[in-house]
């Protein structure tokens, strides 16, 4: 079992008076893709935002590569090597695709080879290079959001529901991209409701409910276990086929 790159221990997060995360414990093994599953409102997005420093944990520890990062500001966490692809994609609409990418490449100038590698998965970004990002379609914006997170190698990428509302052809591109990233030993923590996608890319599964982790398993085990799927996620893979 590889060393955990990221560890959450007893993490609570309050948003105003709402107690969203109620003691979250999990490890994210380095170099693998871990999927965070669960119903709407379970606390998955809050978990990612807490790790990213956009919300402060009220209790508990977040440890990344041996360093406690709980309570750090988001820019420091980003500089520690964590990239974030939010649910809303958060592309800068008035900036061109190129300018979005220039911002994302903060450590060094845009590397041509790396950029071509990104274009191989997301060719639309090359076509719309000088266009304002706001003119892109939803799927293309999602590509841009992911491209921003991978234009420079990062140790951990947090991705929130990338396939939501995206055409299947683009989802295929994403699957290829994630597999390439894993080959690079990039660690990914992915929030997903699309179980088929999760099963296609995931090594490990964490199921979240009511602000806590209620099930941990390898993705292979969970994919075989239709009963647990039905119980925790209200679905089974056969039903989705």
């Amino acid at each position: 079992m590889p060393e955990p790159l990221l560890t959450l221990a007893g993490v609570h997060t309050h948003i105003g008076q709402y107690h969203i995360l109620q003691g979250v414990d999990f490890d994210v093994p380095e170099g693998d893709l871990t999927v965070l599953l669960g119903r709407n409102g379970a606390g998955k997005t809050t978990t990612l935002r807490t790790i990213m420093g956009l919300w402060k944990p009220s209790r508990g520890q977040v440890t990344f590569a041996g360093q406690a990062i709980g309570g750090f500001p988001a820019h420091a966490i980003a500089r520690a090597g964590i990239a974030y692809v939010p649910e809303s994609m958060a592309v800068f609409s008035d900036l061109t695709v190129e300018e979005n990418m220039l911002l994302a490449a903060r450590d060094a100038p845009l590397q041509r080879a790396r950029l071509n590698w990104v274009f191989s998965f997301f060719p639309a970004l090359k076509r719309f290079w000088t266009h304002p990002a706001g003119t892109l379609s939803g799927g293309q914006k999602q590509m841009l959001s992911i491209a921003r997170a991978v234009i420079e190698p990062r140790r951990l990428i947090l991705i929130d529901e990338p396939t939501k509302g995206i055409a299947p052809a683009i989802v295929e591109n994403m699957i290829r991209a994630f597999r390439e990233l894993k080959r690079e030993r990039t660690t990914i923590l992915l929030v997903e409701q699309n179980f088929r996608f999760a099963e296609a890319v995931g090594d490990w599964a964490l199921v979240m409910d009511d602000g806590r982790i209620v099930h941990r398993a390898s993705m292979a085990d969970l994919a075989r276990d239709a009963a647990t799927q039905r119980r925790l996620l209200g679905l089974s893979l056969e039903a989705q086929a």
Partner: protein
Amino acid sequence: MKPEDRATSAASPDSSAEAAEPIPRAKGDYLPLALLPGLAAGALAVMLWQGVPVSTWITLTIAALAMGMMIFVIASGLTLVFGLMDVLNFGHGAFIAVGAYLAMTTLVPLAGWVEANSLLFNLAALGLAMLVAMLGTGALGLVFERVIIMPVYGQHLKQILITTGGLIVAEQLIHVVWGGDQKPMTLPTALRGAVVVGNVALEKFRLLAVAIGLVVFLGMLLLLNRSKLGLLIRAGVENAEMVEALGYRIRRLFAVVFVAGSALAGLGGTLWALYRETLTASIGSEMIVLVFIVIIIGGLGSVGGCFLGALLVAQMANYTGYLAPKVALASNIVLMVAILMWRPQGLYPVAKR
């Protein structure tokens, strides 16, 4: 931002097979620009109908240009602060006033240069005065941001209350330091009077104000479009949280923009006091309503919109001030309502999260 052709940078990918297919350019949004000549033409029509000479229209239009530039200089900082930091700073008027007073004080020991009939010495004196004004209000802005604004981030009502309070306190402090009487702001010798072209008198100081305003506008466009800092500001206006998540210290960016906005207000206040040739502590609060109208018309966070809005507001003020003085005050509110009915987010809204 006004849409412009953006040059592709050195990191542009090699196109190979895809070079054949022309990529459709995003359409520029130029319709609001038509308002400028439209308003000017409308005023001209009314004046000709009333038998007013064209030279008067020209004089008013130049005056509107000058006034518009000065308002733009003042308002540009405010629109970026609101767009980027989501902060409503009614205290912006304090920087206008303090800047003007600092300039006035700087000009006192430079009286020799001011009186001299040499454009060079006059401009040097003014330049120094503007520099002091900008440095002073920039520093004041830094203090203001840390002490007054920071505790109330994200709370609009408290921002309005506390910054209005800051404005009042600043005005009273000006009374304490400089006295509450009206001060004269003498124009330097070589900048008094007008240049006569044909039968039109073009006031010299107004021409200088237009020049300075253009320099500021072009400087801002260059900074926003061609520098990494500009990129950060434009991105931050849309989504400051994402900029921070990409690894940038957003609080530092806020401070830089706030200080720059305050410095520009100080510059604008200096120009405005010289334009009016008189100075009181209420110069800030007199201007602030117009400034807010301008940034709302232009679209919060948009420098191009602010430029256009400032010129429109100045046109309105000058034309109605001549044609129908009784409605001059209300005319700008009417202009704002009319524009918001057409585009509720302002002329060039910046896309928000």
